[in-house]
């Protein structure tokens, strides 16, 4: 059959009807002469079994089963011809037991309290005392100037100008927005965050432990756990995961006057934990949210297609690699897409999940010897939330077990104030030059946020 490129120029439009032209062309080009099978001279003398690929193979021969055969109907090339398999026939479809799926878009309507119910956690709305003491202790030379320059770079001084997605306002459907070319917000956040992380890494000269850390990007994470007989499946793609070679030491070590053995005695000295039983007393006063008659799983969809087991992003567990911090970079277009409470609830759930996976790998027999601590940081434009999670128990089905997990939440940290509106037709900041001038003059930088970030980053470093 002739190719289209071969037929180019053979059709003359507006002269004869196209089908008749095609008929004439087909009479010429619609033939194919089968090439003769000729053996190269080099192969003539040898005793080689020659297989003619163009002709019918030996009908009596057995089919070659060495490579697994995929049906052409299931080949991606012919996907559009054949309807996809029903969900029920998917190999990962669990017929017997559905789960409640908690993914990165799940919203819990009661926020943090509901997440605490689901994970058996007690929240404290501050950073833990041991981390609070280290804020501002370590500082880098010119750190505030450097961070401000990163902010300026991310907002105004980056060379990218991309076609931003068209805006639309749901309340004013007829409103049209101009096309905008600017630095996309995802890139702004990436510039800011990666520069900050690099700045923190530059402390490696003082703290050689930092050289043993790893930063993973966009790695999958999923796990399943059971809460009062209901399976809850956590699934997410982690934007950044920072790992270290030593696990974080627990923040509260004395739990209900039950001494939990810590691995080595050196940790005991360094980490100033909860000497007066401050957090334990607060935790005893905490009352879990009463959602009667609603179950806390109400916001989660039921799902039967899910993966069993745990996934942290690396295939085989390395001998000493523990999750230190997970960094959640939000991809919300609008700041009101979710509330602060819903975002914090998500962070708590996934911090709990990664702590749980780590605990399961450390203690496969299900007996938690030492609490597992994991940190988590949220970033949306200039907004930071910090969360420190301590996993104290693996028992989520027993009502008699009073042992609870702890979470410390520090929310609404704005790295800078007076963020310029990036709208192109804004008369004040419309041009690039104006934006740069604005960034130099009007931004109000808050130095405490980076100090908190640094304190969390250096947590667990000797």
């Amino acid at each position, binding site marked *: 059959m002739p190719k289209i490129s071969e037929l180019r120029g053979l059709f003359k439009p507006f002269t004869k009807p196209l089908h008749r032209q095609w008929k004439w062309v087909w009479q010429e080009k619609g033939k194919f002469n089968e090439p003769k099978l000729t053996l190269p001279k080099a192969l003539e003398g040898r005793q080689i079994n020659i297989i003619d690929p163009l002709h019918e193979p030996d009908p009596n021969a057995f089919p070659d089963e060495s490579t697994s055969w995929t049906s052409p109907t299931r080949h991606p090339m012919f996907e559009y011809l054949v309807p996809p398999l029903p969900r029920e026939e998917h190999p990962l479809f669990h017929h017997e037991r559905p789960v409640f799926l908690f993914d990165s878009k799940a919203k819990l309507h009661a926020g943090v309290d509901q997440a605490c119910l689901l994970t058996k956690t007690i929240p404290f709305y501050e950073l833990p005392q041991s981390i609070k003491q280290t804020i501002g202790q370590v500082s880098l030379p010119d750190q505030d100037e450097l961070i401000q320059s990163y902010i300026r770079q991310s907002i105004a001084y980056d060379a990218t100008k991309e076609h931003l997605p068209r805006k639309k306002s749901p309340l004013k459907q007829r409103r049209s927005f101009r096309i905008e070319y600017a630095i996309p917000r995802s890139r702004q956040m990436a510039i800011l965050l990666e520069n900050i992380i690099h700045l923190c890494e530059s402390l490696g000269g003082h703290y050689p432990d930092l050289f043993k850390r790893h930063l993973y990007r966009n790695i999958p994470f999923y796990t399943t756990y059971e809460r*009062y007989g209901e399976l809850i499946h956590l699934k997410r793609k982690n934007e950044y995961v920072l790992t270290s070679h030593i696990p974080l030491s627990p923040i509260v070590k004395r739990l209900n006057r039950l001494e939990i053995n810590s691995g080595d005695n050196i940790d005991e000295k360094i980490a100033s934990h909860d000497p007066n039983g401050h957090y334990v007393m607060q935790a005893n006063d905490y009352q*879990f949210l009463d959602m009667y008659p609603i*179950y806390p799983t*109400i916001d989660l969809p039921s799902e039967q297609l899910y993966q069993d087991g745990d996934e942290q992003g690396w295939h085989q567990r390395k001998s000493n690699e523990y999750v230190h911090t997970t960094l959640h970079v939000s991809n919300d277009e609008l700041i009101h897409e979710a509330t602060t409470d819903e975002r914090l609830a998500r962070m708590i759930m996934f911090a709990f999940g990664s702590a749980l996976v780590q605990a399961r790998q450390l203690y496969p027999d299900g007996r938690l010897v030492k609490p597992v601590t994991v940190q988590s940081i949220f970033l949306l434009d200039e907004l930071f939330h910090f969360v420190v999670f301590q996993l104290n128990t693996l028992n989520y089905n027993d009502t008699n077990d009073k042992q609870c997990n702890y979470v410390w939440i520090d929310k609404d940290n704005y790295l800078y104030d007076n963020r310029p509106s990036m709208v192109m037709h804004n008369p004040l900041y419309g041009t690039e030059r104006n934006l740069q001038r604005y960034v130099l003059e009007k931004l109000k930088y808050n130095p405490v946020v980076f100090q908190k970030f640094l304190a969390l980053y250096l947590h667990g470093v000797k």
Partner: protein
Amino acid sequence: MYSLIRNSIARIIQRDFISNIGFSYRSSTTNISPSNETPKDADNTTKSDSKFPDKTKTTDVKVPWKSNVIEIPVAMSSQYLMENFREHRQGGFYYDHRIIVPEMPEKYTTKPFETRKTGGNHPDTGRKEYRRVGGGLKKTWLWIDTMRQGPKSGPPLVERVIRIVNSDCHTAKAALIGHGNTLRYILATENLKVGDLVKTSGDIPKNPVKASEGDAYPVGALPTGTIVNCVEGYPGQGARYAMNAGTYATIMKRVDDRCILQLPTKHEISILEQCMVTVGRLSNVAHNEFVYGKAGATRLLGIRPKLGLFHKKTSRFGRRPFRARPILVITGEKPEYPNVIKLQHPSIDPYR
């Protein structure tokens, strides 16, 4: 050569096709056996409708948040939509003369549905039916549960109000309520707040109950003079009267097993005492005070301009008022939906 390749591929595909057919055959057989069972299930459900305690499920007390919770699934299904709305030829249904919901849901959901405009056209023939319909802003449709059914005896179903939202297709506001793992939308009454508990019961006790706003009861259970909304015509039909913003019906008196209600139109109806009603006045009371502000505002709502020629000649437009209508007594069983089979030659069908 190509013929040979084609032959071999044809053979392979044939083999695959046979295996596929085998699959489909097996799946069809597996489908058949449940479909044989489904009528039984339907029978069971109809039986358990009469004996409601079978359907209610009080879960074990061990789980702290599951104690004292009664769970009842949502009574609404796609069957309700099939019976109450005209079907659209492309699979969805006509919500009203302005709005098409293009997809027919499998079961009750609280997710908002995307809609299309009818343009005032007939669902089957495509002819223009309503001259003044066309255009307007996009709307989303919320499936609001109008069949609130509670346990026939024992403690009522309790639900908590999670959110109160504006619905594009309803004048009253919608309240998202939940119990257990079940969410549903109802029409919000005037003073309903987030966090309130609303009850639903199918029980008619000897003495009238003391109901609070948002509770759903049979009419017979409520004292006379109560202000109600979302009134059913027949038991189990789904709410028909007093559904718009700020409206309510009043229970006038009780005669044997029937109740006489005054509708928002001041007409009176007599319905069976088992008909479910919701207590209170519907929300968005200031709806009738809305000022359009400009001529284009009606166009955004999908209303096209009119001529002044064919005006009504009823009491509002200059004639003397008519006398009050007699009480409409709704008797007998709920009429069955007529099973209309259209016989048509395929060549006549314009949409083939």
